[in-house]
Each structure stands twice: as structure tokens, then as C-alpha cells.
């Protein structure tokens, strides 16, 4: 067959595409379980690290909180996984499997919000998953609240495609440490989260609902502020219930 003919070119192209498609889909399908497991373990690691930090105390010993460790001890510390309606009622759903990004596309009355209740060193923490958008793509994270459902114990942020050295700095410890002990309620009792403020001059003031921004990462910072405010607001009905009852509502 003439190699320069149109027919040959088309046949070659079609054959190549089929071979490539089969090879790629085979690999993707066979590696999928391992990839999903990595994602699951990372989620557990993120939830735990909001209230334990980079290391965790397991049976009296301090160990580094790796993905493997996190998946082993997750059930010991996270005592409840709640799926809440926007009225603060718990629903009968597997909270861990809820895709928050998908939920946020629904009408607000139909949305379900996952909440993780953890018990670590005789203290209760409420871990709220966050999701928002940065400059280039999605940003997400978790924030752990102390028993008063107001003071932040710790946060974790992650992003898909923020600029390295600028917006991507939201994943670093020095930025996340600024949120520790900040309050999410303002003085008039509204949930406002924590604002990432440009030109912040509040110093170490932990009750002004603001932290210092990263220079050069204004839009990512605004994304973080908005994400904190909007997601935490959704949990207000449930938080009020906890405050009234003074303990965790049992499902």
C-alpha cells in the first residue's frame, strides 16, 4: 500500500488511536483502586491534622501523621460523621462519601453538609470541610473548631492550581498557623469566619475575625475568606443546637 496515500494515513491514524485508547484505559482502570485509596487516606490525614498537627499521639507515643498512620487511627479519633441539612438536622447518609463540590451546585435547601466530630486527648473537635475557588482553580480544606464551636483549633488548606510561591503558600504551616485560636463568630453573634486581610494591622488580636494576607496572593486570599465564611455559615443551625444542649447531639 502506498504510504503517502490518504487511505493509508487514515488507517494508520485510526489503528493508533485504538491501540492507545485500549492501553490507557486498561492502566487507568487497573490502577484506579490504589489511587482512590490514596485519596481516601489523604482525606483522613487532612481531617486528623486539623486538630493534631503534623504529629499525632497514638498509645502515648508521638508519631508522624502520615497517610498510612492516619488511615489506621482515623476510626479511633473521629467518633462521628454527620450529614447535616441546612436546617441542622442530621440525615441518614455516609458523610465521608459526600462530594461537597457536587452538593454546592444544588439548591441550598437540598444541600447536605458533612461534619466530623472527633475526640482527641479528652477534647471534642468539630471538623468542617471547606470548598471554594482561588485564582485559577478550586481550593479546599478543613477547619477544626473547639468545643465552644467558635475557636479554631487548626486548619488545612489545599489547592488545585494556585501559583507556586504565591497562592500556593496557603498550604504552608506558617500561613495556616495564623488561623489558630481565631474566632468564627463576630461580636453580634453572626458566623463570619476569618477574613484574610490585606494590610492587616491587628497583630495578634484573635477576636477580630481577621488574619494577615500573603502578599501577591490577593485573589487566593479572598477565596479563602469567602470559603470560610460561606461554608461555616451553613453549619450555624447545628452549632446553635450544640451550644444549647452543651454536648454533641446524637444521631
Amino acid at each position: 500500500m502506498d504510504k503517502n496515500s490518504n487511505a493509508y494515513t487514515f488507517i494508520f491514524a485510526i489503528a493508533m488511536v485504538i491501540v492507545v485508547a485500549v492501553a490507557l484505559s486498561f492502566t487507568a482502570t487497573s490502577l484506579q483502586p490504589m489511587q482512590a485509596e490514596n485519596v481516601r487516606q489523604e482525606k483522613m490525614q487532612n481531617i486528623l491534622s486539623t486538630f493534631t498537627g503534623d504529629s499525632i499521639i497514638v498509645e502515648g507515643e508521638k508519631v508522624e501523621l502520615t497517610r498510612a498512620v492516619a488511615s489506621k487511627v482515623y476510626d479511633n479519633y473521629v467518633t462521628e460523621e454527620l450529614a447535616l441539612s441546612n436546617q441542622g438536622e442530621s440525615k441518614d447518609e455516609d458523610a465521608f462519601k459526600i462530594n461537597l463540590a457536587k452538593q454546592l451546585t444544588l439548591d441550598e435547601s437540598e444541600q447536605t453538609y458533612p461534619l466530623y466530630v472527633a475526640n482527641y486527648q479528652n477534647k471534642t473537635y468539630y471538623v468542617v470541610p471547606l470548598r471554594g475557588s482561588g485564582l485559577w482553580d478550586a481550593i479546599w480544606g478543613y477547619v477544626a473548631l473547639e468545643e465552644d464551636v467558635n475557636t479554631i483549633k487548626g486548619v488545612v488548606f489545599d489547592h488545585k492550581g494556585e501559583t507556586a510561591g504565591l497562592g500556593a503558600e496557603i498550604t504552608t504551616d506558617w500561613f495556616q498557623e495564623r488561623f489558630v485560636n481565631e474566632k468564627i463568630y463576630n461580636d453580634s453573634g453572626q458566623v463570619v469566619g476569618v477574613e484574610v486581610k490585606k494590610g492587616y494591622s491587628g497583630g495578634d488580636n484573635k477576636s477580630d475575625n481577621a488574619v494577615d494576607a500573603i502578599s501577591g496572593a490577593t485573589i487566593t486570599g479572598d477565596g479563602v475568606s469567602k470559603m470560610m465564611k460561606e461554608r461555616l455559615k451553613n453549619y450555624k443551625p447545628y452549632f446553635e443546637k450544640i451550644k444549647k444542649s452543651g454536648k454533641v447531639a446524637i444521631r
Partner: protein
Amino acid sequence: MEVKQQKEISKTDKKKEMIMFLSSSEEKEHFLSKANRKILSDPLNDNNPITVQVLGICSALAITVQLKPAIVMSLAVVFVMAFSNVIISILRNSIPSRIRIIVQLVVVATMVILVDQILKAFAYDVSKQLSIFIGLIITNCIIMGRLEAFALGNGVYKSFLDGIGNAAGYGLILIVVAFFRELFGSGKLLGYEVLGHKGLTMADSTGLYALGYENNGFFLLSPMALIVVGIVIWVQRSRNRKLIEEN
């Protein structure tokens, strides 16, 4: 006379290099004829893709902040380049010349997706760090260049060696640059604190930090990668005089 001497010197230099390169796989040495050895070792020095051909600079800037991603990126490029070269070389007599660039792109893209999937399954943390750049291997000029210039015209074994050699030459520079950037930028190598620990105050610090040393944050920014690459090129040319262009 002088030129001849220089040639002699560079020849012995090259021999030394080859011996060093091959000492780890002596039993394989007879598989490598002199020409094949040249294919493998040329890109490490005399024809280095980054420092001599000045290709692939963009990725060299982006992923050399730390040593670990640089090493993983090098391995990924070795894999992609070697196997793309092999596949194109196998197909070289049947690829219709009108769509050869598209075929090359498809082959490279396939290899890159494979690498990405494998990293996601077995080296998740690294894959998160590298995700964007792994995708960008597709646009790495070195790879397309080798496919077009070498694999389309040479046999399978030679193409394989050429792929390994060029990717290793690229990786070598990446690792050298990353070594200096991580060492001076964050005082660490592969995440280990080699210059001592920096505490909150001088009294808490150990090693060089106790003497008042500070990390040079400039090394963490991309411009410094360009400067380090420039210094590498300078050092290489001052040692290997035949690389200097004559005006």
C-alpha cells in the same frame, strides 16, 4: 598544536567519563560499541540538552526548588523519552510522513499519562507536587526534538540509548541545580536539615544557623534557577573549551 593538545585532553576526559559511567555495568560493556557509547554519553556533556542545546529550560526552572521532585521528574523523563524513542523507532518505516508530528505527540502523551497514573497510584505525594509539570513533559522540546532528529532515522536499540542519554543529561542538570537551590534556599537536602536546625532564636539553633547563617530565600525563586543554570554552563564551558563558539 594547541588545538591538537586540547583535543587529546578532551578525548581522555571523555574516556574517563565513559569508564565511570559504565563501571556499574561492566558485564554489559561489550554490548556497547564505541558508537553506541557515544550516543549514550554525548548528551551528558558535549551535547547536553540544557546547557549546550539550551532546551527544556522552562521545566528546569519550575521543579528545581527541591531535590526530590527534580529526581522524580528526571526518572519520569528518562522513562518517557526512552520508550517514546523506542516506539517511534519501531514504527519509523510505517509512519506516514504527513502525520508524523501528530503520531509523535500521541506517543509522548500516552507515555506521560502512563507516568502520571503510575505516580498517582504509587507515589501520591510526589504526584501532587509534580502534577502540572508531568503534564508539561508533553511539551518538553527535548523529547520532540529527539524523536524527530534521531528516532525517525535510527534503529531501536540506538534510539533507546539516545533517549536514555538525553534524558539523563537533562536530569543531571536538573539535579545539580536542585541540589544548590534546596541547600542554600532551605538548608535541606531531600528534606533533611543538613546545615543544622533553625530555631526561633539563635540560642535554639544548631549548626550553621547558630553562627548566624540565614537561608537565602532568593534561591527558592525561579530567577535563581536561571542563574544557577548559567553558572553551570559557565563552569562546563571553561572546562570543555570546544563548546565555546568562535566569533
